[in-house]
C-alpha cells in the first residue's frame, strides 16, 4: 500500500512539473509583447517597463522559469498586476468560500446520485431506472448558469427562501452560510449528481451480474447484505473514479457559479484576473487548482487501494 502511494506521489510530482511548465508558458503564448498586452495598448512606456520587469521578461526564458518555479514552490506566486496584492494570499483568503461551496456541492451530488444510481442499477429497465436515466440525461445538458438563474428567480425572487447573492463565512453565521450556499451548491452539484448516478447505476448493474454476487445469494446472504456489502463495495471503484473527476469539474464550474452568486472565491477571482489579463494571478490560480486536483487524484488512488486489495499489492 505504502509502495503504491509513493509511486503515485512520484507520478504526481512529475505531472506537477509538467503543469508548471505549461502554466509558465502561458505568458509566452501572448501574441506580440506580453508587457504591452498586459498593460494595454494605451499604456505609457514607464508602465510597460514596470510590468516587463515585474514579469521578469528581460531574463532568458530558462532563468525566468527557474525563478518563477522556485518562488512558486516557496508559496510565492508573485503579486497581482492590478491590485499589487500577493497572489498566494489572494488565493488562500478565498479558499474557504470555494471549499465550502465544493463540500456542499460534492455532498449533494453524492447524497443524491449514489442512492438513485443504486436503485436504478439493482432494477435495470424498471420505471425508476428509466425515470432516473431521463433525469440524469437532462441534468447533464442543463447549463449551470441557466439553472442558477432559474433557481434565483424561483427561490430567491418569488419565494424569498434563499438570498440571491452573497456569501457568509461559516464562522460568522453557520445558518446564513448554509442558506447562502444552498442555491450555488445545487447549481454546481446537479451535473455531478447526474454523472455520479449514471456511473453508480452502471457499476451496480455490472457488479450485480458477477458470479460472486450469485455465490453470496447461493449461500443465503440476505439481499440487503449482498447489496450493501458485496455489490456496493465493488461498484464503488467507478463511483470513486467519477467522484474524483467531478471534483475537478466542479472546481472549473465554480468559475461560473461563484460569479453568478457573487461569491468571492477562487473561481470569481479567476474570472476577474482573466478579464484584467492579470497574469500572475491567472498562473498562480491554475497552479493552485492543479495542486488541489492532484491531491484529489491521490486520494482517489488511495481509496482504490482500500477498496480493491489487488491494487494494494500491485
Amino acid at each position, binding site marked *: 500500500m505504502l509502495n503504491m502511494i509513493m509511486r503515485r506521489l512520484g507520478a504526481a510530482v512529475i505531472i506537477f512539473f509538467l503543469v508548471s511548465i505549461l502554466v509558465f508558458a502561458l505568458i509566452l503564448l501572448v501574441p506580440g509583447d506580453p508587457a504591452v498586452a498586459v498593460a494595454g495598448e494605451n499604456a505609457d512606456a514607464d508602465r510597460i517597463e514596470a510590468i516587463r520587469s515585474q514579469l521578469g521578461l528581460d531574463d532568458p526564458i530558462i532563468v525566468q522559469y527557474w525563478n518563477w518555479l522556485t518562488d512558486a514552490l516557496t508559496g510565492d506566486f508573485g503579486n497581482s498586476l492590478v491590485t499589487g496584492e500577493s497572489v498566494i494570499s489572494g488565493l488562500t483568503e478565498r479558499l474557504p468560500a470555494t471549499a465550502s461551496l465544493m463540500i456542499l456541492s460534492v455532498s449533494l451530488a453524492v447524497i443524491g446520485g449514489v442512492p438513485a444510481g443504486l436503485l436504478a442499477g439493482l432494477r435495470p429497465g424498471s420505471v425508476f431506472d428509466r425515470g432516473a436515466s431521463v433525469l440524469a440525461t437532462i441534468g447533464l445538458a442543463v447549463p449551470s448558469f441557466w439553472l442558477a438563474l432559474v433557481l434565483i428567480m424561483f427561490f430567491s425572487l418569488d419565494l424569498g427562501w434563499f438570498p440571491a447573492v452573497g456569501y457568509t463565512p461559516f464562522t460568522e453565521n453557520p445558518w446564513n452560510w448554509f442558506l447562502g450556499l444552498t442555491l450555488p451548491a445545487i447549481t454546481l452539484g446537479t451535473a455531478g449528481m447526474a454523472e455520479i448516478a449514471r456511473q453508480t447505476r452502471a457499476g451496480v448493474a455490472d457488479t450485480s451480474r458477477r*458470479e460472486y454476487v450469485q*455465490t453470496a445469494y447461493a*449461500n443465503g*446472504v*440476505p439481499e440487503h447484505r449482498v447489496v450493501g456489502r458485496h455489490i456496493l463495495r465493488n461498484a464503488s471503484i467507478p463511483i470513486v473514479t467519477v467522484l474524483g473527476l467531478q471534483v475537478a469539474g466542479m472546481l472549473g464550474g465554480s468559475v461560473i457559479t461563484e460569479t453568478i452568486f457573487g461569491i468571492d472565491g477562487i473561481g470569481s477571482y479567476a474570472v476577474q484576473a482573466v478579464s484584467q489579463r492579470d497574469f500572475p494571478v491567472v498562473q498562480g490560480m491554475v497552479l493552485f487548482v492543479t495542486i488541489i486536483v492532484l491531491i484529489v487524484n491521490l486520494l482517489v488512488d488511495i481509496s482504490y487501494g482500500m477498496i480493491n486489495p489487488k491494487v494494494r499489492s500491485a
Partner: protein
Amino acid sequence: MTAGLEAENAVRLPALSVRDLRVLLPDSERDIELVRGVSFEVAAGECLGLVGESGAGKSLTGYAAMGLVERSGLRLEGTVNVADVCISDLGGRRLSRIRGQRISMIFQEPSVSLNPAFRVGSQIAEVVRVHRRTSRREAWDRAIEALRLAGVPNPERRAREYPHTLSGGLKQRAMIAMAISCEPEVLIADEATTALDVTVQAQILDLLRELQDRLGMALVVITHDFGVVADICDRVAVMYAGQIIEQGDVRDVLYRPQHPYTQGLLDAVPRAFETAAVVGIAGTVPPPDALLTGCRFAPRCPYAQDECRVSEPELMATGRDAMVRCIRHSDINLPGVRRAV
C-alpha cells in the same frame, strides 16, 4: 405433528426432490421454455449426476433448485423440496435462510465466484454468521475449520488472504468450504471442476466424495463430462433440450444406455475437453424457442424413423429406477462405453 413423527419423515423423505420443474423465459409472444418439466430425487448420501451438452438446461435446473433464477427475470414452475421444506414456494428472507444452511451450490469458475474485495475467511465467516448465532470469533474459527475440511493447507493463513492470491484449485476449495460451512443436506456442484487443471480436477472430485461421506449430504453433480459421472456418481440423469431423456444407475447407463443421445455422449468422453459438441452426433441442440413436433433429438438421431417425429415421447420406466424418453429403446441395441472410462 409430533417431533418424533417429523424426525421420522425427514429420514424417509429424499434430501432433495424436484417435481416437474420448468424454467421459462418470459417473451412477448409466448414464454420460452428453457427447462421443460424435470423431476428427480436425491437421497441423503447419494450422488446424482446431471449430464448434457451446453444448452441442455442442466445448470439452469441447478440454479432453479436453488431458487436463483427468478432474480434474472426467469419464471419458475414446479416444486423443489429440501427434505420437508418446499423451497420453491419461499422467497426473500425465508429462502435465504435455507440457502447455504440446508442447500448449497458451487460454481464453474472459482476465479470469479469469490468476492475480490474481501478476505477468503471473512466471506466464509459471513455465511456462518448469517445462518448461525455465533460471535465473530466463533464464525472465523468455523471458517478456518471449513477450509481445513475442504483440504486447504495452512487454513489459518489462507483465511486472511484475498482471493486473487489463491490458485484456481484453492479457490474452488474455498468455495466448497463456504458451501459446507453450515453442513447443508444438499450440495449442488455446477461444473465444479471444468475450469481446473486435470490433476486438480481429480483432487476436487475426491474431496467432494469425501465430504459427502463425512457430512451425509445429497450431492448433485452437474457436468458435461461422463468421466466425472463415472468417477463420482451413483445415479445419473441425462438431459437434452431442457428435459431428462434417460435416467438410471450409473453402471446401467454407462454399459447399457437406452437412448441414442446417451450413446453419443459416451462416445464423446475422450474428447470432452477439446470440444463442447458431441462427437458422433451431427448437429446441435435445438434452440429452446424452436417449434418441433416429435422427439427433440430426432433431427440428430441416427435411429430416427417417421414415428419419432409424430409426437413427443414420454419418459418411460424400463426397470427399477431406470427411465428413458425414446419410443424405440427396445428396438435398438446400443453398445455403451466402448473403452474403459
